């Protein structure tokens, strides 16, 4: 295989093999079947997937931080156990996704390096602070909720390992959303101060959660190509509207409100509409100027460096055991 790859790079005119590969790839996509790691695929498809899957993995890993900060402050042992299980799940999600990204030929070390050096992005939602216990509720309900709406169609992504990782992830996410919703429900039925705390958390997380679906369709040129490749199945705006429709109903159960008086169902388009989002803020946060970007990255680097001795010790032990086995 390596020699074929080299040949591909040398010739500007597609080789016979590339043409055959492209034809096979096109057929698989047209049939809505799945591409597997050893299949020929266009370089742009591979690159898009590595970027998307690794960004997704980074988001899971960075996303552990806002909630991990509250593990020691959970109001009960039960809540503490639940929160730990959720944070552990997010670590798992990161690992499933790194594995999927690696099948495309980019080693894990390189993916880590891209994150730690700030070359790779992660979801901007995790650059907002979690200020109160109610934020654990809002994050579970709105942030994991938005993630689910985004991720369910990805279970059918054309790249096999990505789709399979998403199936596993989606199964686990529903618990995340429900535990969040129940935190809010308990607060909403508590004292007036607790109810206010829940409302305040929703007010702060509503807009950033809606922005998780990415820029508006007319500002998201890559989406079209991703949809042609069957990686993406619905546009950013479609998914965002679907999510708004769900949460505007769910918030009634909480007896709270969404901080958006423009939400309405458009009978003509059959779509939910919502107020204008502040895309300037989105791009500012994406560029690293959000409230917690520096803190999140610093914490990630610190964790990586502090773990170095564990990784080294494990390698040394494995090497020693292997040597012993050889001698014996």
């Amino acid at each position, binding site marked *: 295989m390596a020699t074929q790859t080299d040949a591909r790079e040398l010739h500007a005119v597609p080789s016979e093999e590339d043409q055959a590969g492209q034809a096979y790839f096109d057929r698989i996509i047209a049939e809505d079947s799945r591409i597997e790691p050893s299949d020929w695929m266009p*370089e742009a498809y591979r690159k898009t997937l590595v970027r998307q899957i690794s960004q997704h993995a980074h988001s899971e890993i960075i996303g552990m931080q806002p909630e991990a900060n509250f593990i020691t402050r959970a109001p009960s042992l039960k809540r503490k156990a639940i929160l730990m299980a959720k944070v552990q799940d997010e670590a798992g999600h990161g690992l499933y996704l790194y594995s999927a990204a690696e099948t495309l030929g980019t*080693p894990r070390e390189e993916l880590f390096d891209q994150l730690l050096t700030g070359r790779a992005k992660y979801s901007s939602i995790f650059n907002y602070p979690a200020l109160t216990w109610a934020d654990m509720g809002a994050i579970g309900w709105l942030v994991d909720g938005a993630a689910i709406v985004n991720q369910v169609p990805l279970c059918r992504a054309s790249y096999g390992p990505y789709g399979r990782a998403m199936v596993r992830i989606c199964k686990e996410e529903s618990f995340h959303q429900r535990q969040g919703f129940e935190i809010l429900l308990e607060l909403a039925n508590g004292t007036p101060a607790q109810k206010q705390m829940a409302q305040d958390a929703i007010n702060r997380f509503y807009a950033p959660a809606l922005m998780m679906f990415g820029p508006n369709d007319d500002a998201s040129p890559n989406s079209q190509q991703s949809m042609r490749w069957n990686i993406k199945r619905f546009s950013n705006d479609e998914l965002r509207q679907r999510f708004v429709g769900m949460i505007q109903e769910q918030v009634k159960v909480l007896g709270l409100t969404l901080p958006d008086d423009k939400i309405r169902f458009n009978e003509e388009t059959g779509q939910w509409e919502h107020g204008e989002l502040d895309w300037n803020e989105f791009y500012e946060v994406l560029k690293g100027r959000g409230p917690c970007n520096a803190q999140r990255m610093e914490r990630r680097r610190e964790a990586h460096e502090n773990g170095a001795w564990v990784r080294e010790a494990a390698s040394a032990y494995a090497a020693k055991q292997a040597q012993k086995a050889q001698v014996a």
Partner: protein
Amino acid sequence: MATAAKTPVTEAGQSANRGSWPLWEVFVRSARGLSHVHAGSLHAPDAEMAVRNARDLYTRRNEGVSLWVVPASAIVASDPDAKGAFFESPQGKDYRHAMYYKKSEGVKHL
């Protein structure tokens, strides 16, 4: 991205070596009486750590009663470029399936 063009052989990519930590493919038996099924992969320094990590990563919700971890480098795969050719021989051999035999339709317990 120079590494992007490398074509992995196994599901999780032959080229993936996390420093000196090899890649392991994980197989989970979900219940007694069922086969081990491929669940995914992970990096671990040795077999013992691979099994422990596999437990933490792939069986947090009782998904398994048994685990196999296999060094990804030990897996031999059929040639991906052979595509159909390698699997072609059963084609046109419908007589290997019960459905091929129509005259006996309606005969009981057959």
